[in-house]
């Protein structure tokens, strides 16, 4: 046990898909960046918070059989790269689907799920996963 502030610090981003946008080139980022990797110093002070829709499509995916300990109860689970409609690509599980119904290019939307927990007595971690639309 001991994961606390590290998890808490990101809760807004993980709960609500809070990314940010470069005020200089309008590119959207998730997770948030302090500086735009395209505009560099031109973007400093211009990175604006932005809540993302959670809608997007599957870039590629895998069905994970060899899982870290905390994911054993969900084995095998689908993990995908999702390209959100606003632009950023992120990594997340696809849940509630038959694994053989998942395909590249299919539309997904985000759902709020438990991601893990810090042992039986530690804090519970929540965040985004995805379901097929």
């Amino acid at each position, binding site marked *: 046990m001991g994961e606390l502030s590290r998890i808490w610090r990101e809760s807004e981003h993980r709960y609500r898909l809070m990314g940010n946008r470069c005020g200089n080139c309008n590119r959207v980022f998730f997770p948030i960046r302090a500086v735009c990797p395209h505009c560099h110093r031109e973007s400093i002070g211009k990175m604006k918070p932005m809540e993302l829709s959670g809608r997007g499509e599957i870039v590629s995916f895998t069905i994970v059989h060899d899982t870290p300990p905390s994911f054993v*109860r969900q084995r095998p689970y689908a993990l995908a790269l999702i390209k959100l409609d606003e632009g950023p690509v992120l990594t997340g599980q696809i849940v509630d689907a038959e694994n053989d119904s998942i395909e590249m290019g299919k539309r997904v939307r985000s759902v709020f799920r438990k991601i893990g927990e810090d042992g039986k007595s530690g804090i519970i971690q929540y965040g985004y996963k995805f379901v097929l639309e």
Partner: protein
Amino acid sequence: MSGIVGYGSYIPKYRIKPDEIARVWGEDAENIRNGIFVLSKSVPSPDEDVITISVEAARSAVKRAKIKSSDIGAIYIGSESHPYAVKPTATVVSAALGCDFPLFAADYEFACKAGTAAMQNVKAMVDSGVIKYGLAIGSDTSQGAPGDALEYTASAGGTAFIIGKERSIAEINGTLSVTSDTPDFWRREGQPYPSHGERFTGEPAYFRHTLTASRLMMEKMGTKPSDYNYAVFHQPNGKFPTRAAKTLGFTEAQYNDGLLTPYIGNTYSGAMMTGLSAILDKAKPGERILAVSFGSGAGSDAFDLTVTEEILKMDRHAAPTISDMLADVKWIDYAVYAKFKKKIVLGEDVE
């Protein structure tokens, strides 16, 4: 006067049939199905709990209400399966919705009527002008001990209502409660599964409270059963609410739309509220609803509602309807159910 300005429900996709549970425990599935009238129940996946169910239901309510999360002034969440014994579900829900820092919030417990108690509290705060909108949620991932009769019904789901004065789709004409010290069903601190008084849960508990609250409500409003288009009751199984409805003089046409337990099981704090949600999915302006919850221990909360013209302006398909969720099902067997519900214990290093 205040009423419901937004509603949303969430029912996990996984379902198990009583036949499967009966197979494992050597019971007669036919008897169970007929005895309690439950055909299937919802099961939360390992990554779902009262917090995730509450968030999903609340987000649907916000979408339908078309309000900003920052307009929500209070969040009260009733459940008997809050993930934390100490650390309110309401705090995570407020963060997930993006509510403002100034916010009234707490978790409630009153067995299966904690969510409706939250509705009453939020309504009072709206009526008194303390808040503009308030969020009341009833949500549970209820536990039944393996092999216990409760295992056939204890399920998962929840419903959120946003209550306010403006643009309400269903006015709450009145509400009242009855309360007594009746030990029909309880769970002691630290115990994983509840205990219950078997047949004692019927007459002195469920029926006395539900029927009395219903009668008092109609007496107060000067109504009779035929004045209502819909009636919905707490539904620990498929039989009790039907008997209560018939005893009061309601017909199948009035109670059928709100009766979900046969398909999703008993969602405890979510039960009556989710039944009401199913009614709101199809209700028309001017229709009247009697909604009565029951919480063991024991008490009942009764509500008299009238659907308004505003419901025609609401995009009810902005979020999943109850019938959407009843149709979207993944069946599991008892082994997967046991794994999901952590009835199979993993090694210490794993979980």
